[in-house]
């Protein structure tokens, strides 16, 4: 098999490189291991940040489709379920799993876009079934439609951990907590806020010590750590979970780069060992290029920009055409993406390779103004300098501006805002809300991505930014967004709450998770009582009347103890057993009166 350009990896970087090269008239072959083109994009159901016009506010799956369509339009050849097994001195060999045979490939140029692999974490029993990498959970859930568990514990609060947690919640899974060893969330605040307002705890300065279970995961022991990441003794507690999802970072997949003999450097900011390359993505070997996570762990948007830069540079080499205008456009795009605080790590990593990128030059001050009370208007809760501007781009009245740079904090001009909520539907961070105050009540429009949608008139429980219940509200309007799938749900609430309410939940069957059927005690009742300070089983029982009904505690005893154990970290053995009192089934006065002694 012969090709001018061999691209290894059909993710966002590889496909972008293929599009750029093919557009410029180069013959391209893409080799990819997966079942479909798109790499990790096919599992990403969330909307991407970045420039409107450069895929921002599109969901990963949609981006994959767009790239694939373009590849096919351009007639790019690609081989799926095919692994490039070796770059030998004499040839490159690809192995097709489907055909169970190898292909020798003759190439002039190589673009390596092999991406990254997930880091693993060492803790006791980490080999138990039920311990997954975040990517695996996403594959099962978003690609194959299988939820691998019911109760999830996520390790790592970077963007991947946060996004996976949100996707699990959307799929109906129960995220017990996100455990993060450092003292701050690594991912975007807007992603963290989506998690927090659902009431999912993000436990900072915590780590996992061991998985509990014999044949599969039944829970985990977590603990607090000190500033040196050492476990603080006595802070261990158990969390009940059947799935532990590791999202503790990525490392570049450098195997093929190494076989090709390109120069490697160790740069922790870029994820460890990476191929040394110039700003056109060319490695130490003239005909070998890299792009995407292989060249430094970042995200899909920058991977695509790198792919384009590599693709056009290769095309320039092969065809002799001047493509510098296109190349510079993507370099500017990249520079913008990396200009803000979240680009700092990559910037300093690239500096070690001699690539210097600009920083700063964007607005950092937050808008203090909450807008004129009474007017239906958008309020923004986007407080970090992340490179993203769909709100600005979509606003029909130019009421929203980023202050001249994509990394700026968005501000709203309330004289111009007409309350059209286009920005609410567009914002990838779900960080824009609609607000209106009336004489008797207030209304908040909440971006909502859960199924099923509530109905107008439904009573809901209002939640604040931390997921705490703050009252009850009524669904007033449901604006379906068939295209983007970010719906807007308007909830009416007590006046004054419009500044705190940012989420709601429908008191569903789950709300009535009954623990004690006789006395209709719910799981929530039990958890609330434990939070109040009832940590002794007998006290809890007497307070809630658990086991005081006709069944005598058959249903509720163990369940309650389980909740108590989970919440307090006590073992079941430590929890005093309840006194089981006669009669063991209810008997009537009459049956006693009619009783016979003999």
């Amino acid at each position, binding site marked *: 098999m012969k090709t001018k350009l061999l691209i290894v990896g059909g993710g966002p970087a590889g496909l972008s490189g293929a599009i750029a090269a093919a557009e410029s008239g180069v013959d391209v072959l893409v080799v990819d291991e997966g079942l479909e083109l798109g790499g990790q994009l096919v599992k990403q159901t969330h909307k991407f940040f970045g420039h409107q016009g450069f895929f921002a506010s599109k969901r990963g799956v949609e981006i994959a489709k767009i790239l694939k369509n373009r590849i096919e339009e351009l007639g790019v050849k690609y081989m799926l379920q095919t692994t490039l097994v070796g770059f030998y001195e004499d040839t490159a060999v690809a192995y097709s799993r489907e055909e169970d045979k190898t292909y020798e490939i003759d190439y002039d140029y190589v673009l390596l876009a092999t991406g990254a692999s997930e880091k693993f974490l060492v803790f006791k029993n980490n080999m138990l079934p039920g311990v997954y990498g975040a990517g695996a959970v996403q594959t099962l859930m978003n690609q194959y439609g299988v939820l691998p568990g019911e109760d999830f514990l996520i390790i790592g609060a970077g963007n991947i951990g946060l996004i996976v947690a949100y996707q699990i919640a959307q799929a109906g899974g129960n995220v017990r907590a996100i455990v993060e060893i450092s003292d701050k969330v690594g991912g975007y605040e807007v992603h963290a806020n989506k998690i927090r307002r659902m009431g999912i705890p993000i436990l900072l300065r915590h780590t996992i010590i061991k998985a509990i279970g014999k044949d599969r995961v039944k829970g985990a022991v977590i603990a607090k750590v000190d500033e040196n990441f050492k476990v603080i003794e006595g802070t261990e507690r158990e969390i009940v979970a059947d799935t532990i999802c590791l999202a503790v970072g990525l490392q570049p997949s450098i195997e093929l780069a190494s076989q090709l003999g390109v120069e490697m450097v160790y740069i922790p900011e870029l994820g460890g060992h990476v191929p040394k390359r110039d700003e056109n993505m060319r490695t130490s070997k003239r005909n070998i290029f890299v792009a995407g996570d292989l060249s430094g762990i970042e995200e899909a948007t920058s991977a695509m920009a790198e792919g384009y830069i590599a693709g056009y540079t290769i095309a320039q080499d092969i065809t002799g055409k001047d493509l510098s205008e296109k190349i510079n456009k993507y370099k500017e795009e990249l520079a913008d993406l990396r200009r803000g605080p979240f680009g700092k790590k990559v910037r300093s990593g690239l500096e070690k390779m001699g690539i210097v990128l600009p920083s700063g030059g964007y607005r950092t001050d937050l808008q203090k103004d909450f807008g004129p009370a009474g007017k239906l208007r958008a309020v923004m809760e986007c407080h970090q300098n992340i490179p993203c501007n769909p709100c600005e781009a979509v606003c029909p009245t130019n009421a929203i501006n980023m202050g001249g740079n994509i990394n700026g904090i968005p501000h709203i001009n309330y004289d111009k805002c007409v309350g059209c909520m286009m920005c609410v539907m567009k914002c990838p961070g779900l960080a824009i809300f609609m607000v209106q105050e009336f004489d008797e009540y207030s209304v908040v429009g909440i971006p909502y991505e859960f199924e099923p949608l509530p109905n107008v008139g439904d009573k809901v429980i209002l939640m604040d930014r931390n997921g705490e219940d703050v009252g009850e509200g009524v669904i007033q309007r449901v604006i379906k967004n068939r295209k983007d799938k970010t719906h807007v749900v308007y909830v009416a609430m007590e006046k004054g709450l419009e500044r705190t309410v940012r989420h709601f939940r429908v008191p569903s069957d789950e709300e009535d998770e009954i623990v004690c059927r006789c*006395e209709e005690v719910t799981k929530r009742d039990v958890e609330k009582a434990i939070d109040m300070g009832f940590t002794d089983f007998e006290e809890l029982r007497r*307070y809630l009347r658990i086991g*005081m009904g006709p069944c005598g505690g058959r249903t509720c005893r163990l369940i309650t103890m389980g909740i108590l154990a989970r919440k307090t970290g006590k073992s079941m053995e430590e929890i005093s057993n309840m006194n089981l*009192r*006669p009669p063991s089934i*209810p008997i009537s*006065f*009459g049956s006693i009166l009619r009783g016979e002694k003999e």
Partner: protein
Amino acid sequence: MKEYRVCIIGGGIIGTSIAFHLAKLGERRVAVFERSYISSGATGRCGGGIRQQWSARMNVRLAMRSVKLFERFEKDAGFDIEYRQGGYLLMAFTEEEAERFERNVKMQREEGLDVEILSPKMVKERYPFINTENLILATFCQTDGHANPHLANFGYAFAARRLGVDIYTHAEVKDIIVQNGSVMGIESSIGSFKCDVVVNAAGAWSKEVGKMAGIDIPTTSYRHQIFVTESLRDFFPFMAISFDGNFYIRQTKHGQMIMGQGDPNEKPGVNRNVTYEFLKSMSEKMTKIFPFLENVRILRQWAGCYNMSPDAQPIVGCSKKVNGFCYAAGFSGHGFMLAPAVGEALAELIIKGSTEHVDISFLDIDRFEKGEVEIEGNVV
């Protein structure tokens, strides 16, 4: 060593009420030591009645003060305790008892308590579900009532804790340290603590705790059994009780009927097992007076201890022999209903040296030595 002003032994309604009232008076250096869990003793096992109709005048006063405090409980402690002033119907089945009731009512009215005397016909009219056969007369006080003892106990404990009191559960006091006639501290399963005052609120174990300080608390504990039925609709707002008939019965907020009786043949000692004999004798007696019970099912029975004093009245005060040793014991089956007033009075006595709201000097242990004893008759 951790230091407190007051260490209270017993986390029942009495101990936690004293703790709450001490904290309310501004004394936050208070700890409660409970050997098991809150409401594990007699409080969590009692019928929950709150009555002012007593035969001894001082008890009427004490109970009336308690009712005032129960009325304010939710406001004071921030806890709904299912308090209901549905009244108490005292039923006399003998001429002798009827005469006594009439005398009592005269005294109770003198104390300002609103009590009615009802003929069997009036009882039947009001409460057709009661079989009034053999009833001579009944007395009724609307401001009597009942509450959920667990919740009241938790209410005091949580409120005290909020005010700064330390409440230790699963913490057993092993000894009281007395030097030169004064309390110095306690030894417990969770360590030693210094304190100026120890309060014996140990209920069924008050005698044993008294011995730790070298003080003889003349109490004896006896088992009392009790049971509860399945839920019925809400129709029985009051507590019905008879001393010569030997029973009490009420309906809880949740609809369950709760009832019990005393057993004159019960042997002294802490025994919390239950007997079938008790169910049989209750079934026979209760279905006669309350025929609707015939088809009602019994869910659960249990037992607790009355800590009886020689005159069936509480022993409350501070020792004149051991400085700093106080006691609130021997409640003889009515500790729950008296707890608010006793807690308040003893807290006042400890902090201010004298009581302000209700005189409890008649409850001091001295009365047994002086021979000034009036036996309270209105006890099941």
